[in-house]
């Protein structure tokens, strides 16, 4: 069982969390098209490599947060708060921060 570095509580077993989807912003409901809206709802990139994920720490602090996870190695890093949409390409691994290095809050 992998552990996730909760930004509030620290590392916890993944069974305490619920995956709430790939990172991605909600289209404007006033102007969205069926194609765009359903892409948002159902289509996931599911890459082999770095991906941004949203998680809910339901059995802990009950906060929603985002992280970046490498789907092959399970390496985890926290998204850079200064970058709105973190890069999800393979090359982004260079700035990788090991899970242990993640500081609380």
């Amino acid at each position, binding site marked *: 069982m992998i552990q996730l*570095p909760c930004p*509030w509580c*620290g*590392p916890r*077993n993944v069974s305490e969390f619920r995956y709430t989807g790939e990172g991605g912003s909600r289209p404007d409901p006033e102007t969205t098209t069926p194609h765009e809206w359903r892409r948002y709802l159902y289509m996931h990139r599911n890459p082999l490599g770095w991906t941004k994920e*949203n998680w809910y720490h339901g*059995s802990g*602090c009950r906060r929603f947060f985002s992280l970046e996870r490498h789907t092959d190695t399970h390496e985890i890093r926290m998204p850079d708060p200064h970058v709105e949409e973190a890069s999800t390409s393979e090359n982004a691994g260079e700035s990788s921060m090991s899970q242990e*290095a993640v500081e*609380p809050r």
Partner: protein
Amino acid sequence: MTQQATRPAGTSTSHRLPVQSGEVIDRSSTLDFTWNGAPHVAHPGDTIVSALAAAGVRVFSRSFKYHRPRGLLTASFHDPGCSLQVDDEPNVRAAHRLVEEGIKVSSQNTWPSLRFDVKAANQVVGRFLAPGFYYKTFIRPQRLWPAYEKILARFAHAGTTSPNTAEGYYDKRYAHPDVLVVGGGPAGLGAALSAARDGARVMLVEEERHLGGHLRWGSVEEQATAAELLTRVASSPTIEVLTNSVVLGRYDENWFGVVQRGLPGIPERLIKARAKTAVVAAGLMERPYVFDGNDLPGVMLSTAARRLINLYAVRPGQRAVVLTANAAGDAAADDLRRIGVEVAAVVDPRQGADVVRAHGRRGVLSAVDLTDGRTIEADLLVTAVGWTAMTSLLNMAGNRPIYVPEAARFVPDRTTMPDDVLVTGGLVGDGSVAQILAHAEAVGAEAARRAARRRNAQVAATTTSAKSSSELAQSAGPPETDTPELSPAPHPELFRAGTHGMVDFSEDVSSKDLISAVREGYDSAELAKRYTTVTMGPVQGKLELVNAVAVIAEATGATIAQTGSTTWRPMYAPVTLGALAGRIFEPVRYSPMQPWHERNGAVPMVAGQWIRPDRYGDPAHEVRAVRENVGIIDVTPIGKLDLRGPDVAKLLNQLYINKWSKLDVGKVRYGVMCAEDGVVMDDGVTGRLSQDHYLMSTTSSGAANVWEWVENWLQTEHPEWQVHVTPVTTAYASINVAGPRSRELIARMTQGVDLSAEAFPYMQVRTGRIAGVEDCILWRIGFTGELSYELHIPAGYGLHVWERLLEYGQDLGVRAFGVEAQRILRLEKGHLIIGQDTDGLTRAYSAGLGWAVKLDKADFAGKPELVWQSAEPGGMRLVGVQPVDGTIVPPEASQIVARGAGKVLDIVGRITSSRLSPTLGRSICLAQLDASLAEAGTVLTVRLPDGRDVAATVTEHLAHLDPSGERQQLVTIAPDPVPDAVRRPENPRSPISPEGIASAELTSGAAVAGSVLITDVSGLSKFGIRAAPDGVLADELGTDFGRITKAADGSLTVGSGPGEWVVLAEPDVAADVLTRLESVASTSGAHASVVDLTHGRALLRLTGPRCADLLAKVCGIDFSDDLTPDGSALRTSVAKLVTDIVRDDQEGVPSYLLHCERSSGTYLFEALVDAGAEFGVESVR
């Protein structure tokens, strides 16, 4: 001799040797047991097989496919021929299981007896039982498969289970060792000792009952070394030794499954261990040799012979041939000579000699042919032809072993080892005991160093820890260790002699089978494995994998390195279902009225985690009571969320499909939530209690989802909205009082609320005092269609109000009704149930909820999909349906069918709810129906599950009764309440034992020496506070998330979440504490809220030295002092229940406060008492 093979040996111990220096048996006493009905004796410490071998028994089982007689091969847990039936337990590894007084042991897979086995005829027809025989033979004709299956099942290799077997108590716990050492041989012991010396907490796991590995059956010097290592381990308090335990698998991030066997009263315990680092010292297993007759009883490995002689003082035979290509085989020959076995020949492949075949007489070994042409009479053939490294755990860590031809074995690829897994001992290489120990000690030290680094990182990242990063940097631990070189010793490659023999002893796969599989095209190891089932039996490749690979390589002409190994996967050793399933945590929830339900014969129903009364008697009578007089139902499971803040209306507009901007104080409204795909998710009523204070209700099953949904919107999409959400589902006992006389009933006991129809109309909310209980909430709503009131009572007084309602309504004909009556009542009224009358595809318009959708709202969840659905005609519609014959109740999920074009029968809908209505005296239904058929009066065909078709008509309204809603507008005269007519009890009831009163003391004086005391302290007052995590209020409270502080008035402030606090106080100061908190909140200027959770939470205190051990059995958190010191606060899963844990030591004794939702209090208490049984836990409630 051969007669002894199968004839009961009585109480003879003819093969027992004089005392051996390393023996593990206790000769001072004996145990009686039976083997296939005959009496036998053993000494304590004897395995079943060693005791039988001491009596001269040589055949223990019949093989899987050919039913060949099988004897001892390895004399260890993994001996393939020694799976026996012990009492009711099949498949017992009898070369590992100890004899216990009175056990009945029998062979399995034999019929009618071990000696005369009918199925042994398979040997004769063996040449027709080629690989793939079953696949090829029993595939056609397919209709005969059930018949084939019955016959084949008789041939299955298993014992028998008894349905009357007594229940076993299987156990679980979590562990967080710094270093997990796998294997208790010299390498494992050396690594454990050096890791412990360097400050690591070590868990040492050994499969056998004794530590020491091969030193135990080695020379006197080796035995002395083992004894010295054992003494050092025993005096290291930070090494936890688990013998007779096995590491089953390694999973992501060093998560290990360990099974601990043979604990007192517990057959097996599963340990889930998260190790900072692991040292794998699983060692080498001796490999059998492949030749004609290699599975005859009497042919055994050198390690088996040495175990029998040195550990169990058993003479393995009378006249021996020793095939030895290494030092272990040479030592076995010496051992045999020492105990007086005639060694007729030593066959040394290092000198070019070899065996050809073994002959049997009456099923056991009688002679051995050698390559020099000699045939030697012998009843024992000992083989020592090489080793297999137990690399399975390393495989599971992603490491693929590589083949070293010079050493004739696979070794780990040390260039790709993960940082948190280290390896030592025989897996790495060979050497003297001193060389192995030197390597192991260096590896142990390095494991401790890496573990310390990981531990410091964890402490730094953990909110509850009190240490700063700089403190941790100073305790970085020892420097990296240099590991001395250790490499595998040269060994001749010996897999198969010139003849064919058994490769897989469990599955009866011979070298000939493998070669023919390759010829048929199954020419890779992975394919041949699945085709022949080689390595797929109970031994799972430990003995036979390398031989199988070698034979496949031989057949394909490739090298062993090219052929490669198959993949080792978890589990390493077989594990019982009991160990995996044991002590399952299934939280259950009870309402405060549960004692009354139990006393009054309620038939329980399971609704999610809730246990609810389905009925008390005949539901039809309960329905009539509601329609004619008044009934009360316990609706506590209805989800309730307390919403506070200036932006609640914005939130409600976002969540619900209807409009909420203009809900006045004192009013409630029905609302429907859709998910973003427009599918109906939940419904309920929400009432506005005051300007910025609302109470939302949800369906019982949707309560948790809706709470998460609300938090999701608030935290991710609209963090700027000022709303605090507090779940209060079980802070209130909820009672629905329904029926024409409901107003009269509640008027008799309600104060402070004008109940007249004009002053308190339909869809409004009031707060007041009921039966003497303050702060009750009354909603005038109606799920049943009758005049009704939903009362929300502070939960500790729920039972009191429930009992008073029944008492004061006796003359009105009041009775309690259950969920079944409620379902009938709501169906008569045509109210839908989300999830019953809708499914995971039902959008709002299909649920008959189009009237509620307000597309002119700016935004709400699911809006785009509903806009598009509203523009499309067609789809499904929710309709009322009545069968023409009112006596027929079509079962729910009956299909509605129609003849389409070309006379094809189409499914056009389905019955979603159906009941016989006691009020209307006929059957009534709701259905999902194609919109084209949804017009009232349409006659439908409903196909019943038995195939009959019945006619049914679409009704005009969903409501079968009172569609205009007159009944719930009923005007009755409410009598004036008698002031103080009913008084409430002095103390609220405890959530943990509702018949009792909980303690209300915050400190615990009583610490139990050596154990744990569990006290119900739910009587304490509890307040929940929400504010910005870094705002004025946070500064004022001065308690960080993850920590606690104590105030002068004795109250405890818990930093229970980011921007979330819980204050615990004794009741006599509670009012002052609340006033203080509210004044702090109101003067902070920022958005802040204080919610009284006294009734909503169950609270326990654990005190005693073994608290952490108890918690480790129910909770995956590491409760060591550096991660969760005194004053820590955290929320996690305890026995699968979300629970807040506060460490609040009492006078230096470890102590923890645990609190959870009130309804789960009894469950949590009982789960802890159950888990603590082994510590002699004491409880007070």
